[in-house]
């Protein structure tokens, strides 16, 4: 692996992509037998017998996301969708390959990660904001807008443990999206609040999209991606099966994963 990097060569005559992923592989090393204690490890290491099982969550994935583009990622459980988002969010470092993101990132994958039940809503806004890389000035300036969006003024000084799960996810979403970012990483499994509130969240993301933001959206339900995505990537067991226009990818995906009628319907609707 090179220690010094050269500037990424921009594709000639086209827009510089916001995200460039090339040859991305991610390997989890799972000990064959769980070696959790140091004593065991020392004994095995002396005997040269620490056996690992390599589990490739992603294998040689190449993709780009242009400015303002919404890329959907489909695939079954364990296909590597969440791993891809975690690599883009810098949580996991690539085992092989390279990831370049030319812009700010707003991860919406683990909304409210780091919230503390004993702290008040107000304190949690600052704690979660700090975890996302904001400083005090940023958060002071945005605090009122965050609470407005979460619709939680009545509870903002109550400890989080009295919040309902819907309220907690509203607060998490409000903090995580309190600002424009160049790239939103969205895990569709996380539904925020009731239907009306979900619509409000969607509207906010659409506003950001109109301002030029890109997104990578991960979903089990390909049907929900047909409306919003510009392009799709289909992952299966860490490998990139197909990338391209929504209709094409869905069709190929449906053909492989039949009989999932909802996908077929979505594919024909998109085609």
């Amino acid at each position, binding site marked *: 692996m090179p*220690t010094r990097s050269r500037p990424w060569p921009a594709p000639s005559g086209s827009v510089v992509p916001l995200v460039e992923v090339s040859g991305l592989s991610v390997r989890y090393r799972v000990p064959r037998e769980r070696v959790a204690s140091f*004593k065991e490890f020392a004994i095995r290491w002396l005997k040269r017998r620490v056996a690992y099982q390599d589990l490739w969550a992603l294998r040689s994935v190449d993709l780009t996301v242009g400015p303002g583009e919404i890329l959907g990622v489909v695939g079954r459980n364990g296909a590597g969708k969440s791993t891809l988002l975690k690599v883009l969010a810098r*949580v*996991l470092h690539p085992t092989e390959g390279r990831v370049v*993101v030319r812009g700010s990132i707003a991860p919406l994958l683990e909304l409210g990660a780091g919230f503390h039940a004993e702290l008040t809503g107000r304190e949690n806004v600052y704690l979660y904001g*700090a975890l996302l*890389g*904001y400083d005090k000035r940023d958060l002071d300036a945005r605090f009122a807008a965050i609470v407005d969006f979460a619709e939680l003024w009545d509870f903002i000084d109550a400890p989080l443990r009295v919040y309902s799960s819907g309220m907690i996810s509203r607060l998490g979403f409000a903090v995580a999206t309190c600002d424009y970012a160049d790239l939103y990483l969205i895990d569709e499994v996380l539904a925020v609040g009731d239907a009306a509130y979900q619509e409000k969240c969607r509207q906010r993301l659409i506003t950001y999209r109109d301002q030029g933001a890109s997104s990578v959206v991960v979903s089990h339900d390909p049907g929900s991606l047909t409306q919003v995505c510009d392009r799709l990537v289909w992952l299966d067991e860490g490998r990139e099966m197909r990338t391209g226009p929504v209709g094409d990818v869905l069709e190929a995906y449906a053909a492989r994963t039949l009989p999932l009628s909802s996908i077929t319907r979505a594919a024909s609707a998109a085609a």
Partner: protein
Amino acid sequence: MTVIDTAPAGNRRYYDSAERAAPWLEELSGLMRYRFLIRQLVARSIKTRYKRSVLGVAWTMVSPLLTMLVLTLVFSQIFRFQAADYALHVLSGLVLWNFFAQSTVGAMNDLMWSGGLIGRIYLPKSSFAVAAVGTGLVNLGLALVPLGLIALALGQPLNPVWWAVPLVIALSAAFALGVGLLVSSLSVYFQDVAPTYEVLLTAWLYLTPVIYPVSLLPPGLAAWLKLNPMHAHVELFRDVVLRGVVPSAELVVMGLVSAAGALALGWWAFTRKARDYAYQV
């Protein structure tokens, strides 16, 4: 077309996974960018520790006092120590020891059990250790209050060498951070490091003249104390806070060398693998 760059967020606007500064340097610059997070983490541990207790922050002050009371009652009877001297000796020793123990154990536990944060969100991994030492410093500051009050009550007012107090505490903090980083990096890979370390800490406490005076040790054993860095840190603290004397050169050198050595070793060991920690949680 140029890259859109309008976000005022504190996070970076350019990420290249192949870009690789030296790990120790990369972690340091990450830590600088996340200064506000460290303050928030310190505030979180202080607030949540006392949220549901009636005495609140007073616990930090009361708990070493109670330990001191028990030990003084017991030891002044058994060993016929002069009670007032002994009480201050124990209390000052415990205050510094608790700071060290809480900071190092906190560094380890926060990294692993903070809701698995490092597997869910990007942040500089050393934030937890730095915040644990920060929390320890706040508690140490609070614990100095009862120390002063007890000294007054016993008719032996503290006569600290004021200018040296922050320096001595800084040395202990650096040592605690180094040890905290070292044990945290091990505990990421081995689950039994945390319980082992807590047992070792207890043994270490009894190997250090914290709850007994140095004079109790036979001369043969006392010579070994020179190799115990915590002995140097506790004695430095007692010299400048309790006895009001400038510490001997030997103690200062021992304190400096152990602090710098632990910090360098801990930082190197921790940052070397820091970007792989998310795979382990």
